[in-house]
């Protein structure tokens, strides 16, 4: 009996302390979001209280480390330009005094407790800055243009299908656009830009002419095609078709025998582009299926080739056309509402949560 009591007392105490710790972490010791500017050109928002390394990792910037964040290898050092705090004793032990005075800190030890500006060695960033010149501008719809950009410096870009680049036409104003060109052509990229009423960047971009130069950063994003055997379901709304182009191309040309379906929604046929290409592809590739849907059209449209454009929202199209959802991998890109509804439909169809990737804009 005494043993039982002592066990109960010990365990009860431990549970009590754990609950207390969790409550404090969750509700009392809560941090705000801070902005961290890296090398003066990238700004990320960071939830305070975490180390620089982990906050950069969330932004896909990986600092090297040989010690797993224990503060002993010193590889992850960054230079803190603004928001410098006193060095921790670990940092004093690892870094030379001269470096500490200059503002060098260990990324795995220094935590974000306010807005910061840091400098990270350029080679650590897999993300590069590209300079390109516009070689061709295609008007796709009344408000969407495609810009074909020849890379000037660096001459080639290596990206994964579905990733995006960040364009900074005006200093301080950045916008992300999916790479709408195929991965196999590395010396140029295409961007498809929808003109937003009163949008600073899209208006600026739409005013560009051929031969104009454009700078962008990239590639970014974990929205990219995974290599496996699952059927790829691409769900695109409007200009959300852009990242699907390289995904579809990669599946058909590089993944032998993998099937891909494109669900493409827009309001009217005037808001839809490049559908001719996909209609002709359905005839050429038996692994490719194309299901367009128009949400603001009353009657079902028939293309001259006999191809049918259904009416309704794209999630209804998925609900009626998608089969064997549990063997699918879904990639969604489009307006948030469309993505939310489509994800719901995909879940109902049995597509596993971890195989749904999306890019909201």
């Amino acid at each position, binding site marked *: 009996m005494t043993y039982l009591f002592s066990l109960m007392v010990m365990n009860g105490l431990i549970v009590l302390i754990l609950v207390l710790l969790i409550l404090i972490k969750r509700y009392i010791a809560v941090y705000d979001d801070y902005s961290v500017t890296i090398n003066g050109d990238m700004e990320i928002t960071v939830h305070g209280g975490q180390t620089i390394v982990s906050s950069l990792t969330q932004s896909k910037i990986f600092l090297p480390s040989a010690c797993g964040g224990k503060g002993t290898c010193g590889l992850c050092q960054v230079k803190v330009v603004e928001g410098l705090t*006193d060095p921790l004793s670990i940092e004093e032990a690892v870094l030379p005094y001269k470096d500490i005075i200059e503002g060098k800190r260990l990324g795995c030890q220094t935590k974000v407790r306010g807005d910061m500006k840091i400098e990270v060695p350029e080679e650590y960033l897999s993300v590069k800055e590209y300079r390109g010149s516009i070689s061709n501008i295609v008007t796709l719809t009344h408000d969407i243009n495609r810009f074909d950009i020849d890379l000037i410096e660096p001459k080639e870009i290596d990206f994964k299908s579905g990733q995006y680049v960040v364009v900074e036409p005006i200093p301080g104003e950045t916008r992300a656009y999916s790479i709408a060109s195929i991965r196999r052509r590395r010396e140029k990229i295409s961007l498809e830009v929808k003109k937003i009423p009163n949008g600073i960047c899209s208006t600026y971009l739409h005013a560009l002419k051929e031969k104009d130069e454009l700078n962008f950063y990239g590639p970014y994003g974990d929205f990219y095609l995974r290599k496996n055997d699952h059927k790829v379901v691409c769900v695109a709304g409007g200009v959300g078709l852009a990242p699907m182009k390289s995904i579809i191309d990669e599946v058909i040309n590089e993944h032998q025998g993998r099937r891909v379906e494109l669900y493409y929604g827009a309001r009217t046929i005037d808001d839809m582009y490049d559908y001719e290409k996909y209609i002709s592809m359905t005839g050429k590739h038996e692994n490719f299926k194309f299901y367009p849907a128009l949400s603001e059209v009353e009657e079902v449209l028939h293309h001259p080739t006999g191809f049918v454009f259904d009416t309704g929202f794209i999630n209804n199209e998925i609900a009626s056309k998608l089969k064997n959802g549990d063997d699918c991998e879904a990639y969604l890109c489009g307006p948030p509402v469309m993505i939310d509804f489509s994800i719901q439909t995909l879940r109902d169809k049995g597509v596993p949560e971890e195989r749904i990737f999306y890019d909201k804009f």
Partner: protein
Amino acid sequence: MKMLILIFFASILTNNIALTYFLGMCPFIAISKNTKAASGMGMAVTYVMVITAIVNYSIYSFVLVPMGLEYLSFLIFIIVIAGIVQVLEMLVERFFPVLYVSFGIFLPLITVNCAILGLSLFMILRDYSFLEMVFYSLGSGLGWWLAIVAMAGLRRTLMLSEPLESLGDAGITVILAGFMALGFFGFSGILPV
């Protein structure tokens, strides 16, 4: 009331936990290089001492004694101290970042600080009442604080002098602590506790 005041001052001066019992030596030597950090550490130790003493005392008298589980006190005290140090660390990191930076790695060290466990065990041994225990723990914390700040002050003066190289940094500090203990020994006649 007189007893409470006696216990309070005795724990600061005559029974100083750092200089009479030589408990809590690791942070006492490691973090007494500058007065600011030493003061922060002293504050943290005082805070942890008072809170752990109250919690440990309550658990001991309301749970362990009625159930006849006094032999668990050692384990329970350690767990409570560890938990409270964790809580303190989270709160200090969030609300007093400057203090947190000056603690560095030494705040988690409080978890295994013998001064704090020693205090909890002494208060059981001496059979203090609740109020006496509060005054005792507060006095002990302040005493430790006083000792480490005094040591930091001495060490700042030491930087200007040139002690034997073979004594190093820690060696001369321990010798200094010995002299300070002798100094505190002088208090022993003034209080009958």
